[in-house]
């Protein structure tokens, strides 16, 4: 059976079980809402990174600075030499987003637990409520590489206005079909999180993130199935993924870059929460790109 392009960045539950007490590994749970996740159960020995409090910038819409990132990781006992295994709530979305951030901040060996909390719970593997306390380290961000990971609004806008989407660059909207078409502006439970207008960035194709995972286990589908799902996405063009706030886009970014081996994939983390609120910006409704 064909393998993922980078099988080294994905670990399964057996690997984690076999390495629960391995001092060269840090298991890190990344939660959007730890009170309904890590605090209730987590993998024994796992430390917690809170997405909003620890990784988002405290004042503006951005990520923590390299210095703040160093401080967070040092406090958790994570060193530059550790193999970091990420998993978390919300379908591993924020774990994938954090994987992306670790890569942008140059961490050498970071991996994702396939299936995350969903699969761990399904298999009935051991859980804990105990919060581990590891000795403080002196973590250092050795390089910052936003260029190959991130796209900003002004670049996407320029690409759209020059008519490059679908030609030089493939924009993938990974939200649900209803969000893409503009039928809804956010999932129905979140009435207070709507954008001003519904619809997608002109030229963007819709491939919902969920197509890449097994609905029962949350694990990524085998490579031949993924290759079919993304079969129309050319490998010789740049790819930009986006969703509503960037976390689902990071999940698909991981699939394309590390499981299917697409060479140039970036995340537009501003996503529809930025694009669909800007005065005068082009937005398209309906099923056509």
């Amino acid at each position, binding site marked *: 059976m064909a393998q993922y392009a980078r099988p080294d960045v994905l670990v399964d539950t057996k690997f984690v079980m076999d390495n629960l007490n391995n001092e060269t590994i840090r298991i890190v749970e990344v939660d959007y*809402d730890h009170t309904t996740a890590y605090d209730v159960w987590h993998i024994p020995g796992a430390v917690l990174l809170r997405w909003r409090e620890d990784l988002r910038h405290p004042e503006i819409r951005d990520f923590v600075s390299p210095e703040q990132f160093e401080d967070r990781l040092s406090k958790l006992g994570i060193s530059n030499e550790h193999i970091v295994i990420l998993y978390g*709530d919300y379908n591993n979305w924020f774990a994938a987003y954090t994987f992306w951030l670790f890569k942008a901040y140059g961490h050498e060996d970071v991996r994702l637990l396939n299936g995350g909390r*969903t699969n*761990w719970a399904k298999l009935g593997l051991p859980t804990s409520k105990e919060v581990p306390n590891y000795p403080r380290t002196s973590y250092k961000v050795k390089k910052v590489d936003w260029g190959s990971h991130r796209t900003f609004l002004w670049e996407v806008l320029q690409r759209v206005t020059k008519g490059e989407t679908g030609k030089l660059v493939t924009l993938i909207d990974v939200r649900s079909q209803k969000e893409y078409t503009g039928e809804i502006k956010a*999932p129905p439970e979140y009435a207070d999180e709507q954008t001003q207008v519904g619809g997608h960035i002109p030229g963007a194709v819709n491939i919902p993130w969920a197509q890449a995972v097994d*609905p029962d286990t949350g694990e990524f589908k085998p490579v031949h199935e993924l290759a079919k799902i993304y079969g129309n996405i050319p490998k010789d063009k740049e790819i930009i993924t986006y969703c509503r706030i960037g976390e689902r886009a990071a999940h698909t970014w991981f699939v394309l870059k590390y499981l299917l081996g697409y060479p140039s994939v970036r995340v537009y983390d501003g996503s529809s929460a930025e694009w669909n609120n800007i005065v005068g910006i082009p937005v398209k409704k309906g099923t056509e790109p």
Partner: protein
Amino acid sequence: MIRVVKEFTFRRSEICGGRNPIRMILEAMNELGQCEGLTIELDDYDWVLVLRGLAELHEFKVEECEKANNFLKFLVYKSC
């Protein structure tokens, strides 16, 4: 006899945002009176495990119902 006062269905692929299903269920649980319950359909084993843990912590009863199309159905209630 338990009176079901609210029904929830949460599909993993459609959830995204600042409020999560467990939080919404917890809010509804906190409003339950005696002999009242919620039926909950979830398609995520993580949510089920979290929900069981929190329900037990707050002394609610949890009864597992049938499973269909990857959805796990539960009745969470306050005893009479």
